């Protein structure tokens, strides 16, 4: 449906002339006497609705369904006509609710049968409706403003639904002519106004209402074109349930709705669908509930011609209630969700079903089939107090059997900071911000969220072996604060305290959680470890130092406090990075030849990380010394099973042999001998010496 189709604006014009006070002659027995009380009591005479009451309640039902399915941008302007017109609401969104309309209708009251019929006419209302259709809506205004140069794309179309008691076909023609003339007049007026728009298309739906038991004086007529601007159709309907059915069909036609009947709704106490009904549970009746929704929810049926015709005129798709199953894996993906409105909103089965759903339960719906397997095609579920009919894909999916992400780029890396990124995501979660809350920066909330993401990711190493500071509990206070847009004086103090604490740790020669993955032996020396840590911390803070003076002060503090070996200072002047790289290749050079053999023997195991480390870290502020690699006794444990199974290449046969031979040339490490499951606790001596937990400074290694 186009945004500005005739359905954007609906003007209801309801006849309030004296003849509408006439009885519909459809009687309602509202005094239902129970047997025990029936004796000696005279039942109350049945009541009957007036034509006016019938028109009002059916039009309210039309609006109720409309507002349920389209809470916004499908607008109603309700007009009542007698000796003059009464406009009960405006096009504004806040005026669009049945409660508002009912309050206004109560103020109007029923037609006064004693009013002079000569003064009264539906025409007053129809003229007002045309004028109203020329008035610009909020959405039209918004889109016209947004489109600027192409504002003419915003169309102005509308529909007038007129509920009246016409005198004859001639009378109807007179009304049509009058509307046509009014449109022409109003369009001239609209041409000279900013707040008015000329009507490009108007659809008149005239519903002639007459009492039961009378013959109609007006004949039905399908839609015909009165002029390029106006089409008109006439429905001649008896008051009462015929009128209700007619308006129900009209609202479906006008707003592309379709009907689904949920069948076999169990009222068993175990399912708690309907607690009130439990007392009658032994009757074990299964109920049907009809729902209206956008017809796209039936796309699959319409295309394959699978709609079933229910009783009479009504077209509905029947779907079976499917007793909830626990195995949710069978659920296919959802391709759409559509708001619903129950046809019979306050009937017992309807309200039981809707309450069941509003309480957070979901219902799967299956296509009724005589044979074959269950086909679940829809699901009913509520979100935020609104019930949606979800369309589930019930055929084969083109997404079946996707490859695992581990087969793709970066899939073999095993030390991603998954937990840290989870924490990062939780800090960057979103929340709805009220439209009125205005930010001085003029940025929309989503833009501010993106800005925060930018700040938080200025320095964010993706793998554990690439970082030292993010593996240290001691750095956490500073790391959390420095990414903030602004810092308080207290924040700066906390950051400084963090730095002093690190200085203290260095003085005490506390160990750091430098990644030793893949390395044999102790890894870099302690002072080298601290150099790496300080460099990384400086990198992090540098990316934020430009934000405010306070950020800069944190950086200053680090620069002032950190230790720098003199030769390093020297190197810095000459361009540290390049030097570093050369350094490394030099040192690596000599070892390369010896080490290659065993490196090759185990490409995918832990050793990969080392290779990677040397690859990756060259981008980081500083690199650790290449580690002294020492052969190990057995490589079997770290070989992934799928590798072990596959065919063995000549190269790997050879390298395995060499590796085995080399490993025999040295004694096994004490740590490895004492290890449990090939894991040895490091820095045990510290525990013994200081009684201090190693993990105090670093997060438990993963």
């Amino acid at each position, binding site marked *: 449906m*186009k945004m500005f189709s005739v359905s954007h604006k609906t003007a209801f014009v309801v006849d309030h002339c004296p003849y509408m006070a006439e009885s519909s002659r459809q009687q*309602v027995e*509202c005094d*239902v006497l129970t047997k025990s009380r029936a004796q000696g*009591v005279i039942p*109350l*005479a049945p*009541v009957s*609705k007036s034509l006016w*009451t019938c028109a*009002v*309640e059916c039009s*309210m*039902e039309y609006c109720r369904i409309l507002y*349920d399915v389209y*809470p916004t941008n499908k607008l109603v302007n309700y007009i009542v006509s007698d000796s003059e017109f009464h406009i009960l609401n405006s096009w504004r969104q806040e005026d669009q609710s*049945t409660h508002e309309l*009912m309050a206004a*209708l*109560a103020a109007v*009251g*029923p037609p006064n049968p004693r009013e002079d019929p000569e003064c009264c006419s539906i025409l007053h209302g129809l003229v007002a409706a045309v004028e109203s259709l020329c008035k610009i809506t909020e959405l039209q205004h918004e889109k016209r403003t947004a489109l600027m140069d192409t504002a003419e*794309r*915003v169309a102005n179309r509308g529909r007038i639904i007129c509920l009246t008691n016409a005198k004859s076909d001639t009378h109807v023609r007179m009304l049509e002519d009058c509307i046509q003339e009014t449109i022409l007049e109003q369009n001239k007026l609209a041409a000279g106004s900013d707040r008015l728009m000329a009507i490009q298309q108007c659809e008149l739906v005239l519903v002639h209402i007459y009492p039961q038991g009378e013959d109609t004086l007006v004949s039905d007529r399908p839609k015909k074109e009165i002029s390029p601007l106006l089409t008109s159709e006439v429905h001649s309907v008896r008051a009462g349930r015929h009128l209700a059915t007619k308006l129900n069909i009209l609202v479906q036609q006008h707003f592309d709705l379709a009907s689904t009947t949920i069948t076999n709704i169990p009222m068993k106490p175990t399912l708690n669908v309907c607690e009130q009904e439990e007392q009658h549970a032994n009757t074990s009746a299964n109920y049907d509930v009809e729902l209206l929704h956008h017809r796209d929810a039936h796309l*699959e049926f319409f*295309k*394959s011609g699978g709609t079933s015709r229910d009783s009479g005129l009504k077209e509905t798709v029947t779907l079976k209630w499917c007793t909830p199953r626990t195995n949710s894996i069978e659920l296919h*993906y959802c*391709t759409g969700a559509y*708001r619903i*409105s129950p046809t019979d909103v*306050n009937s017992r089965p309807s309200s039981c079903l809707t309450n069941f759903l509003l309480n957070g339960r979901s219902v799967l719906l299956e296509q009724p089939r005589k044979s074959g397997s269950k086909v679940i095609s829809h699901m009913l579920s509520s979100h*935020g107090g*609104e019930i949606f009919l979800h369309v589930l894909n*019930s055929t*084969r999916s*083109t997404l079946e*059997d*996707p490859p695992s*992400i581990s087969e793709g*780029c970066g899939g*073999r*890396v095993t030390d991603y900071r*998954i937990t840290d*990124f*989870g924490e*990062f995501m*939780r800090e960057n*979660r*979103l929340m*709805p911000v009220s439209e009125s809350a205005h930010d001085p920066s003029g940025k929309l*909330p*989503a833009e501010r*969220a*993106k800005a925060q993401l*930018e700040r938080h*990711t200025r320095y964010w190493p*993706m*793998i554990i072996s690439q970082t030292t500071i993010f593996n240290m509990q001691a750095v956490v206070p500073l790391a959390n604060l420095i990414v903030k847009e602004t810092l308080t004086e207290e924040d700066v103090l906390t950051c400084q305290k963090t730095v002093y604490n690190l200085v203290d740790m260095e003085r005490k020669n506390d160990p750091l959680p430098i990644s030793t993955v893949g390395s044999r032996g102790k890894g870099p020396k302690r002072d080298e470890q601290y150099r790496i840590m300080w460099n990384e911390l400086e990198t992090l803070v540098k990316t934020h130092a430009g934000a405010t003076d306070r950020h800069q002060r944190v950086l200053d503090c680090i620069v002032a406090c950190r230790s720098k070996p003199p030769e390093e200072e020297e190197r810095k002047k000459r361009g540290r990075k390049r030097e570093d790289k050369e350094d490394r290749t030099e040192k690596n050079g000599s070892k390369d030849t010896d080490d290659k053999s065993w490196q090759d023997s185990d490409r995918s195991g832990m050793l990969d990380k080392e*290779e990677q480390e040397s690859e990756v870290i060259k981008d980081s502020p500083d690199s650790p010394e290449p580690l002294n690699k020492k052969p190990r006794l057995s490589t079997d444990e770290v070989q992934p099973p799928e590798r072990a199974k596959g065919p063995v290449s000549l190269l790997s046969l050879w390298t395995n042999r060499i590796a085995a031979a080399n490993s025999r040339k040295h004694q096994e490490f004490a740590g490895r001998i004492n290890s449990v499951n090939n894991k040895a606790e490091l820095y045990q001596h510290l525990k013994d010496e200081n009684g201090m937990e190693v993990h105090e400074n670093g997060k438990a290694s993963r």
Partner: protein
Amino acid sequence: MPTVVLMDVSLSMTRPVSLDGSEDFQRKNLAVHGLTMLFEHMAANYRLEFTSLVAFSSLWELLVPFTRDYNALQEALSNLEDYDKTCVESALHGVSNIVQQEWGSSCPCQVVLVTDGCLGIGKGSLRHSFHTLKQRGDDKKFPLPFPFPAKLFIMCVANAEELNMTDAMENLEELLHLNGGEGQIFTMDGPLCLKSVQTMFGKLIDQAYSPFHAVLHCGNLSSDVQVFPRPEPVVVDEEVEPMPRTVNTEVDEVGTGATDELEEEASASQMAGKSPNFCVLLHGSLKVEGMVALVQLGPDWYGMLYSQADSKKKSNLMMSLFEPGPEPLPWLGRISHLGPISEAAENPYGEDDSKSPFPVQPQIKRSYAQNVTVWIKASGLQTDVQKILRNARKLPDKTQTFYKELNRLRKAALAFGFWELLKGVADLLERECTLLPDSAHPDAAFQLSHAAQQLKLASTGDSQYAAFDHNIVPMHTDFSS
């Protein structure tokens, strides 16, 4: 998006192509060469797409059902046999059935029709189909437009001049027109040779089978990604926004929080398998935390990323596209109005994740959530009246419920201008008053006659008593003293 290759194997496809002195090729050979090129391209860049091969002449046959096995397709292509005359209509019926059986009628498909432009003779020819188009019943409708969204690509192993000499081009254009203009006709430029058939299929590949490469950004973290199936441009409203919207190739992650579904996977280069990739990190954390990430695909167009696992414990990063618009999921509110939780005084998710600021509740409740009054059916009215009477008999215990129901009925009756009902219910209450047993609490009689009197006043329409927002309050009685 799945592809059906519809290959013409009629006799005319065996016509030799006049090549200067070299081997004698048939048009069929050229067609096979072009399709080989397409399959090779798909195997390399589109290996997650499903393709099937159908051969047709006067009959049609499904040679390879939908598969990702491009070797199978290739093999079938090399074993093609030659049959009788071309009958496009029945073949398109075949395609329609094959696709619907496999994918239903909402999955978009691409149909690649490979032919030489000889569209049959006599009954069953495309010309004949079009001549009889208007004289058909519902049961013999022409297969186009397909019941599913489809693009039709017609690959002619012929050049445009040749097709224009007969009505072939005209008929092919009509075919495209019947498909709602979705698709394109490709012809060969210059002499019919391997090179020109390559050029023609190259154009098809550029048009319909170019892989979708994009960059996923999350602040300063980013990753190159390829998206399967390729997200197609969408026209939201041909009047207000006539230009189709396309997914930006720079995809922005906004934050973490139906529809087409997209599968996304990092381009699989074994070389790169060992350097860290943001997608893998994101996927891992989304999976562990059970979260989804919101992605912005273009102006006012969003989607979400999440980890999807199949039953075999393989999981991958999936992207679902929402319908274009500022508020694709009503229970999230406007996406542009989702802000960082750091701005809130108190974490809206609670310190222990026990709360959530979602779903956003609509300002006005839907009818089924607000106890509306509808009397369209007599039973609705009877139920409401009986409810009042039931409570009336239990006064003064049920005083609150009695007045609540009474006021609900009063409001509706006033709105509907149904004053007669107010009088009727007043009469009923007065009758109940007379029927009270001797043992009844004295308050019951007071409340009943008070309520009846108030209803009667309202039924006069007197503005003092008939105001919609006015409520009848219980009569103040005190029997304690």
